[in-house]
């Protein structure tokens, strides 16, 4: 499969403060990729670099096979955008906006836009100024989807949406994905929604990804285990790879472990050396996994708290 989006070792700092220290990942055709991170982790910076609004200090970003530093008009026309900075002209009505978009975007599907607006109870006569933030996000999403984009980029689109609007938003996104071969890169803090739709998840922490894998894999590779051992943690802690957290309890310790894909067997071996009758692992929800992987102070350039 082809990669429609690619980040290769991208670095960027603001006023001497490193934001991205080596961001690498790609989004394949037909894939929904969720980029997660705490506030200030650098998600918006990554989006801006991908769109060519900001240049990386090193490394490279690509969109539909073109370098982000000089995207052609054709490539831009095949990308749907739902971002905070998306211009919505407050003096227009929704209907004006539809006409405007239809006039400027050759691939704009007016029938789709009109039907979607009416399904979501967004009257064409309504002034954009009068809309709530959530309604405005929905209008922007519909405009983006109506161009039938090859790639949809959404930076925290759920911000300001109530539960019912979020569901509408998800439904619209799912409908788009019913069409073959479209890719989505989006960031969100609503992890319950991400669990419904993401194929792959990247967790941005400390300027780079601390996890980049299929959602199903992530939930299994980060696990909770209980080891029965009388030995003090200080003796064995350093010998267990991927250890995120240790909590001592009577008769043993409760551990949170992360297998980045390379150390599953090493983890198993280290734990069995401590407790030959090791019980099976418990998986985590995405929210639990996210909290474990982004806990603690941000150490730039290193996955904080994870043993090598």
């Amino acid at each position, binding site marked *: 499969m082809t990669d429609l989006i690619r980040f290769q070792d991208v670095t960027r700092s603001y006023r001497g403060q490193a934001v991205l220290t080596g961001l690498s990942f790609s989004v394949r055709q*037909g*894939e*929904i990729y969720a980029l997660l991170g705490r506030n200030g982790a650098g998600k918006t910076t990554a989006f801006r670099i991908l769109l060519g609004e900001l240049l990386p200090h090193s490394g490279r970003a690509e969109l539909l096979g073109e370098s982000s530093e000089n995207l052609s008009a054709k490539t831009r026309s095949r990308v749907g955008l739902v971002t905070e900075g998306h211009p919505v002209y407050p003096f227009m009505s929704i209907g004006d906006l539809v006409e405007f978009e239809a006039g400027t975007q050759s691939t704009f599907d007016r029938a789709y836009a009109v039907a979607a607006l009416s399904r979501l109870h967004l009257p064409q006569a309504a002034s954009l100024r009068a809309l709530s933030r959530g309604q405005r996000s929905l209008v922007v999403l519909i405009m983006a989807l109506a161009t039938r984009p090859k790639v949809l980029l959404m930076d925290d689109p759920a911000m300001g949406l109530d539960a019912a609007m979020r*569901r509408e938003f*998800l*439904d619209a996104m*799912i*409908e788009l*994905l*019913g069409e073959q071969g479209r890719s989505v890169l989006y960031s969100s803090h609503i992890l*319950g929604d991400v*669990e*419904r*739709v*993401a*194929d792959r998840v990247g967790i941005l922490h400390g300027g780079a990804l601390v996890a980049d894998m299929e959602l*199903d894999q992530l*939930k*299994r590779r980060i696990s909770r285990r209980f080891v029965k051992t009388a030995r003090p943690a200080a003796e064995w802690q350093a010998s267990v790879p991927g250890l995120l957290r240790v909590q001592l309890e009577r008769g043993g310790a409760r551990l949170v472990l992360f297998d980045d894909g390379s150390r599953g067997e090493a983890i198993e071996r280290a734990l069995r050396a401590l407790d030959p009758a090791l019980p099976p692992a*418990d*998986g*985590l*929800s*995405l*929210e639990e996994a996210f909290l474990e992987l982004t806990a603690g102070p941000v150490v730039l350039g290193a996955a904080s708290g994870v043993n090598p």
Partner: protein
Amino acid sequence: MFLRIQPSSSDPLFEQIVFGVKRAVASGELAAGERLDSVRDLAKQLAINPNTVAKAYAELESQGVIVRRQGAGCFVAERSSPLSDRERNKRLSQLVERLVIEAFHLDFSPPEIRAAVLARLDLHASDQGTSP
């Protein structure tokens, strides 16, 4: 078709769908020959990624639970496992072994385990007896 899923569970969503369909077939809620919702419809209904539903259907097809008819959709297969008798016996004994071991670690005695299995089988039989 009525499936319930738990997106926050660490069990992959596609496996939850696979098991949900298998359970619906086993209980008689879905009859042989009945048509399943299309990938798009089920994805919409559950508000999940269509890729996930497609993956679940492919898995159900490879396990012989459903059959895909070109252009017509997916249907519940007539009940017959595509596996050899030997393979079926092997898998059944693995499942039973797992059950016995896990139940042992929950501190149940052999008579208690046997009673629980028989009760479940009775329940299953009555489910099948009462559904259309």
